[in-house]
């Protein structure tokens, strides 16, 4: 059995959250530049140029791309042949988050009780951790600092099977329309279809982490992604919601087997700062 220390886990998590908050992925930068070329609205062009400049400044100066450095969300693939040594696995992850947000000068945006005191935990923990036990002796980390301007615009609906493809399409486009300027467009939209209500939400979140430009491997879903993206970009909302052709950068759908009676759909909205980072130990 391969041994992995909690100290190494902590270090990786810390580095990933700092990296995700300072360095936007090349996929996002490439897409922003491509959309800037195609944008017709003057305000849209100037906003897209600002976002590109902003991302370059953040990376060069090692500062946060956005002040909303998010709740810390992690998707972990944990090899079943690994033995964790030196302490508690979840605590090691939270310690990594704690150190990233303190040493990286990132905003602490987590409140302990959501309804009553809403007191800030002051270290951005606890992280939201999804663990998938997989064969092998590696640990794969995929992290995203999730901002709430966009998270607040997310929606879920239990469609019925008869609603089909059109039902899904209409719901996703309607979500983008209602969101309007609020989620900092151009957005990246994660859609989770199937499973239970919670599973759909989880895969929708994971879908927001997918590299921009990569479609679902199933051609039927890939086609649906392209069609929905096109529909959303016809809404006219544009960069920052001031009008334009660039409302979404990507629509990423993930799907899961579901019950004979159901068609759950969750739309998780992410802003243009589609921040994610990954590493393996």
């Amino acid at each position: 059995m391969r041994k992995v220390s909690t100290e190494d886990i902590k270090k990786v998590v810390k580095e990933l959250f700092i990296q995700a908050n300072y360095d936007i992925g090349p996929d996002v930068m490439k897409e922003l530049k491509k959309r800037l070329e195609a944008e017709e609205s003057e305000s849209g062009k100037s906003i897209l140029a600002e976002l590109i400049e902003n991302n370059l400044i953040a990376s060069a100066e090692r500062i946060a791309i956005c002040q909303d450095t998010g709740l810390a969300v992690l998707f972990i693939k944990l090899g079943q042949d690994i033995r964790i040594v030196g302490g508690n696995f979840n605590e090691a992850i939270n310690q990594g988050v704690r150190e990233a947000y303190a040493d990286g000068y990132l905003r602490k945006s987590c409140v302990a009780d959501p309804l009553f005191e809403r007191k800030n935990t002051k270290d951005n923990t606890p992280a939201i951790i999804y663990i998938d036990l997989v064969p092998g002796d590696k640990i794969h980390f995929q992290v995203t600092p999730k901002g709430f301007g966009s998270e607040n615009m997310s929606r879920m609906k239990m469609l019925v099977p008869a609603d089909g493809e059109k039902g899904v399409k209409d719901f996703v486009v309607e979500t983008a329309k209602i969101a309007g300027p609020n989620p900092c467009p151009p957005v990246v939209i994660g859609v989770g279809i199937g499973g239970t209500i919670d599973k759909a939400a989880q895969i929708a979140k994971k879908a927001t982490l997918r590299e921009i430009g990569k479609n679902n491997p199933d051609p039927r879903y890939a086609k649906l992604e392209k069609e929905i993206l096109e529909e959303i970009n016809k809404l006219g909302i544009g960069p920052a919601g001031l009008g334009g052709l660039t409302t979404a950068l990507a629509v990423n759908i993930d799907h899961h087997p579901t019950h004979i009676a159901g068609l759950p759909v969750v739309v998780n909205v992410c802003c243009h700062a589609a921040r994610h980072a990954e590493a393996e130990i």
Partner: protein
Amino acid sequence: MSDKFKKITTPLTDETVKVLKAGECVLITGDIYTARDAAHKRLIQLVEEGKKLPLDLNGKILYYVGPAPAKPGQVSGSAGPTTSSRVDKYTPTLLDLGLKGMIGKGLRSQAVIDSMKKNKAVYFGATGGAAALIARCIKKVEMIAYEDLGAEALQKMEVVDFPVTVVIDCEGNNLYITGPEKYKK
């Protein structure tokens, strides 16, 4: 900066506000004040109790922001706008007390727009997510109240040429409606 920008300084007067039209690009110089939901809640509580506010709102601009912590040597950490609608419930009361401008992002309620028309106030949109870029316009930050709220505290920010767009003007014209209309297909 290009000529497409109109330059204004704070505090705002009725005269300044009246000539600002939805869609115009503006550079703001002067003092602005930061407040998010938590600070708004406390301000409104003081108003309800008939107590004095920690700042005189007359002619002031509130910026809906909770900055990232400043690194050593930095005046302010990244500081882009947060979603304005979360303070909509509190805004008409503050407008009645003389608040003249607001900087944020996203939609406002009809009650806020009506109150802006009544009180001659303006709503500016800053670019959400352009937080590192905006931080460069911030020259000084001073704590005014609610330090315990951390990033949500009420602070005075001295800004130079802070780039914003007039989204809703004092006549109620709304760029979030007229802008997208042009590009809708």
